[in-house]
């Protein structure tokens, strides 16, 4: 269950709208079903009272929207969860928007529910009720099913890296701590496989890719004016995914382009219609960076020098590095 309520957020927004701090609010709008939540702009309390929603399915990271939002007149209020604030800082580091045009209200987060997992519980979801550590799914046909809330969390929330906000103008509720999570466990599991097993694993996962670009378009690190994959002059332009090479190429290059900049927000895996665990590619880079060059969390502070634009004289050699990334060996 989320620690803050919809009412608290609406009151806060109404206050900031009222005193002229902001002229619009970027929030979540309710839809047809419990999980059908859309990011939307609100300009009045009345609109928020009618449609604003906050709950277990408000997973979208709003940071990227600020790139476009801040180009408009006025100041926008945005609610950021701890993990979103990392993306926020990273975008600021890369000069992607004007900090002055955003008012950040940091909100605590107890993990967002995974729609896919909820849907696996019952067919025909009428509604979802959150009772703290249990979640009850009301089915259209099969009655109620109650499950552990923790089991309904996506990987990114199960292995939450931080409950601490690294950027905000104002905080609602208590700030949390950076968490020593098990987020690299899955990566390690893969590292321990044989190359053949790893190849088979990724071949199976990536072959499902339909190149819808959702992972790219949602990624807060992918704010390029023009993506290399859309640019015929880049030499890597492609839009088809029928060929297994192209899927691999797309995902490898995308992961490399965001390496050192990816804050591990997990949006790529959330939006993938084919449930490809794309975050495991990014986490591999993060894990390697931490192991080769010392711990680095993108977005932890504004202006930090990313590991790929930095070096030391005694960095490991590539061969050594590849060897080291299998620390079991």
């Amino acid at each position, binding site marked *: 269950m989320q620690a803050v309520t919809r009412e608290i957020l609406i009151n806060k927004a109404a206050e900031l709208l009222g005193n002229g701090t902001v002229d619009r609010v970027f929030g979540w709008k309710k*839809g*047809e*079903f419990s*999980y*059908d*939540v*859309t*990011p*939307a*702009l609100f300009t009045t309390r009345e609109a928020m009272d009618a449609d604003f929603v906050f709950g277990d399915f408000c997973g*979208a990271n709003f940071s990227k*929207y600020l790139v476009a939002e801040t180009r408009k007149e006025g100041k926008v209020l945005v609610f950021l969860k701890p993990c979103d604030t990392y993306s926020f800082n990273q975008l600021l580091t890369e000069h992607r928007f004007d900090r002055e045009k955003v008012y950040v209200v940091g909100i605590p987060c107890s993990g967002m529910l995974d*729609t896919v997992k909820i*849907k696996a519980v019952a*067919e*025909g*979801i*009428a509604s979802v009720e959150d009772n703290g550590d249990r979640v009850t799914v009301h089915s*259209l*046909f099969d009655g109620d099913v109650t499950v552990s809330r923790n089991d309904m969390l996506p990987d990114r929330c199960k292995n939450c890296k931080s409950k601490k906000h690294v950027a905000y103008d104002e905080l609602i509720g208590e700030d949390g701590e950076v968490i020593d999570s098990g987020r690299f466990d899955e990566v390690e599991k893969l590292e321990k496989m044989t190359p053949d097993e790893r190849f088979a694993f990724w071949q*199976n*996962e990536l072959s*499902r890719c*339909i*190149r*819808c*670009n*959702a992972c*790219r*378009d*949602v990624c807060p690190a992918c704010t390029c004016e023009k993506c290399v994959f*859309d640019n015929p002059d880049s030499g890597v332009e492609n*839009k*088809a*995914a*029928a*060929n297994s090479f192209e899927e691999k190429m797309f995902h490898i290059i995308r992961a490399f382009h965001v390496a050192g900049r990816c804050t591990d927000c997990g*949006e790529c895996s*959330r*939006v993938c*219609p*084919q*449930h*490809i665990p794309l975050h495991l590619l990014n986490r591999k880079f993060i894990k390697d960076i931490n192991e080769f060059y010392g711990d680095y969390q993108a977005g932890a502070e504004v202006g930090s020098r990313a590991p790929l634009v930095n070096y030391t004289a005694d960095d490991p050699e590539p061969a050594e590095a590849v060897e080291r990334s299998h620390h079991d060996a």
Partner: protein
Amino acid sequence: MRKISLDRINDLFAAIAAEFRLYLPVDTNGGARYEEWAEGKILSDELNTVRSAKDFFFPQTENLMDFKTEGKKIEIVDTRSETEDFVIFGVKACDVRSFDVLDRVFLAEPQDSFYKNRREHSLILSMACAKPHETCFCTTFGIDPSAPMGDIVCYKTEDALYMDAKTEKGAALLKKIESITVEDNGEAAEKQKKVIRERLEKLPLHNLTADRFGGDKTAEFFKAPEWKELSASCLGCGTCTFVCPTCQCYDIKDFNTGHGIKRFRCWDSCMYSEFTKMSAGQPRLTQLERFRQRFMHKLVYFPANNDGMFACVGCGRCLSKCPIQMNIVKVMKTLGKGEEKNV
């Protein structure tokens, strides 16, 4: 109507596969998808596949032709070959309807031979939906999930599969598997139909109507102010387009292999900013325009050209897959509401 008990369903698949390539939905860790049947593949229990069945006729990419160049000379290599007959098993009513929508495009003159080739060699075994999901709204478009179209309609109950041929092709296939099936009076299927229809009543989108849309509504909806809010948080990705069974925009591109040029066709999306971009300019500059195009096409432009047929089959894929949960239902409700007020 023919019947086979579920514990012998593998025999059915084997019998069909002996004659044709057989495709059916199977489970993967990314949801259900169509795969070619082979011993050991199990029919998925999922309501529907993540990707639609349009892939069979309009694949994500396909080679159109090859070119060889030498000096100033060009040679065109026709790489087409006639497809063998194949069977798609377990297609849901919505997806079956989507084939009609696609036919309107690809089989309109001049016909697309690549599409036609596969379409003519296919046999569709449709399946009634046992448990429609909250995202389903096929009834909005007059589709009956309890009685899908197709060469053969199938009903799956707790213990058996019932098959009813709707076309000659279907009847011929049923004939071929006569030895492993038994005749059935159709009562079980009727009972199943009734259950489905009862379930449909409970669906949240059951009452959604497309009455307010149609070919003559361009002026009414094109300039609607609601588009702004609807498209505001659209990421411009192609998820809705690519999982949609009726979206058929494509791009034609050349790939230089180093030994020659392959000209291929691949899915494209009108939601992409590059879609209409040309060197001279860009007619749809904003995501609003692109977003509007997609839904106007489905609800207005397509019906205008196709006797009122909507280019949406209510499968609900975009409802569950859109990264920001924006979808055609919200568009229909939002735009439709505006009109309601006026009435």
